């Protein structure tokens, strides 16, 4: 069971190509990070994988089947998408937002029943927001909103959850909480997590696999210790990184600064 991008290319109208023959594979289980500079094509790649955008060339395969041949409803039962932080126009409660994740399991005229409410309740408990379930989604913190959208994705009962920068705009505590929640889902829940991020260190800390994009091309693909390294990041971000390691062997990448050069 896997989601595969096979030589996917994409360009917006009248634009330069955003993705050029991008190939990757992610399994249902585990966490894949997509790293890359602003404009390197991370969000576009996620949108193609989610079926929001159709590639100009190449194809997305979901469990061996072309994504373009899957109905929107079937797609939404298999792949969940958590957009970047957003605020809806209406003050739906956390519960109401999460329950919307049941839409792909309900016929056009049906409303959520007991089974759907159970799924929503379980997802809200998984992300630890049960206490806030009746709060307006518009009045909770950014971190809590992120967890709400993750819960909505889980309520969809998907095998793959795609997230556009789930660690953006969050304080370190919420980043850690969000990332450990996702990592646990990846390891225990048979859900494949694919997340774009601007935090290479989060890839080192939580991910099983990292894909580094440089202007629409995959420049590295593999376990974080081999891909999130200065040589590759320097190329991806156009700046110099250095790898630091603690006594216990934990690693992090940091930018090279004047003080580190003179040291």
């Amino acid at each position, binding site marked *: 069971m896997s989601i595969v991008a096979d030589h996917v290319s994409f360009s917006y109208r009248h634009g330069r190509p955003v993705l050029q023959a991008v190939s990757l594979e992610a399994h249902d289980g585990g966490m894949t990070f997509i790293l890359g500079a602003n404009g390197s094509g991370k969000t576009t790649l996620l*949108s193609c994988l*989610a*079926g*929001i955008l159709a590639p100009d060339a190449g194809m997305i395969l979901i469990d061996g089947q072309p994504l373009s041949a899957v109905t*929107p*409803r*079937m*797609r*939404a*039962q298999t*792949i*969940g*998408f958590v*957009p970047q932080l*957003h*605020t*809806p*126009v*209406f*003050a*739906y*409660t956390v519960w*109401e937002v999460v329950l*919307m*994740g049941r*839409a*792909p399991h*309900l016929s*056009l*005229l049906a*409303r*959520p029943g007991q089974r759907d409410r159970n799924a929503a309740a379980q997802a809200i408990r998984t992300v630890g927001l049960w206490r806030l379930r*009746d709060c*307006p989604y*518009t009045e909770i913190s950014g971190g809590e909103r992120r967890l709400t959208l993750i819960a909505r994705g889980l309520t*969809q009962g998907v095998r793959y959850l795609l997230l556009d920068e789930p660690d953006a705009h969050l304080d370190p505590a919420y980043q850690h909480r969000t990332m450990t929640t996702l990592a646990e889902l990846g390891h225990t829940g048979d859900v494949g997590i694919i997340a774009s991020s601007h935090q290479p260190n989060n890839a080192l800390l939580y991910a099983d696999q990292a894909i580094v994009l440089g202007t629409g091309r995959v420049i590295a693909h593999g376990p974080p210790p081999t891909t999130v390294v200065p040589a590759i990041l320097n190329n991806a971000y156009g700046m110099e990184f250095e790898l630091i390691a603690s006594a216990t062997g934990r690693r992090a990448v940091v930018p090279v600064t004047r003080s580190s050069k003179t040291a």
Partner: protein
Amino acid sequence: MIPAKNRHVVAGGLLALLVVLAVASLFIGRFRIGFTTAITTFFSGANPLLTAVILRIRLPRILAALCIGANLGVSGAAFQGMFRNPLVDSRILGVSSGAAFGASLALFFARGPLGVEGMAFLFAIAAMGLVLFVGERFGASILVLVVAGVLVSAFFNALLGLVKYVADPLNTLPAITYWLLGSLNGARFAVLWPLFGISAVGLTFFLLIRWRVNLLTLDTAEGATLGLAVKRFRLVVIGVGTLLVAASVAVSGIIGWVGLIVPHAARALVGPDHARLIPASLVLGAATLLVLDDISRTALTSEIPLGILAGLIGVPVFLFLFMRVLRAHGGGWR
């Protein structure tokens, strides 16, 4: 907003209130006979004239008010959600302007009430068709639909202006003006069956899909990742919603703000979840128009046009009642 545990009680209460209001409305009017006497006389059948007035004049008019109020409330709620805009009402897509032009044309050529209703409906549907055609062709984004609606509206307003300009200022022009102010004066069973039929089908449709309307309030891409065929669903909701409005204005003429304010009031009561908002808008819309029409036909010796009454009474009432709610917690909006 009403707490969750009280919702069933409140829903039942509102519905009961609506039925009581509707039945009571049968026994008030300009026929010179007291309310309680009217009831006893009607049930004893002692006054055939009163019985005829109640069954042939008041009953159809009350049913029409209920249908039209419900239609405007429900379509207003669905459109406000779909366009994510608190200023939207059932007129956003140019249907009312189409209807106004159609009616003015029929009045200009001195057609009877059925002709006026038919032409109003026909041109309302033409306006809707234009908006749907443009939407279908250019991707049905919210922006495309709103701009198409405004343009179609402007076009039919220009045509209406043309008819008014050439109309006989002594007979035809006042008739057109009066029609534009809205009234249920002409509501007889003979002209109401299309309204009843369309309302039954359209309102049932909205009651069935009401929860799914929530998904239309999300971003297009987000709705798609939840398995919704966004464009198709949007066009269907617009189609059925405008059909409800078209059937309504064809009978009543233009009644402005009901489709705008009723959803706001309903949202303040039950919150933004369309599974509750749509039934609430239905009941509240029906009750609002019923009360307004009762006032319209009883307050003065001659009838007060509904559009005027709606603005004069309804707007201040809702201003004072709901501005407080809007200030306190946004009335369901962000």
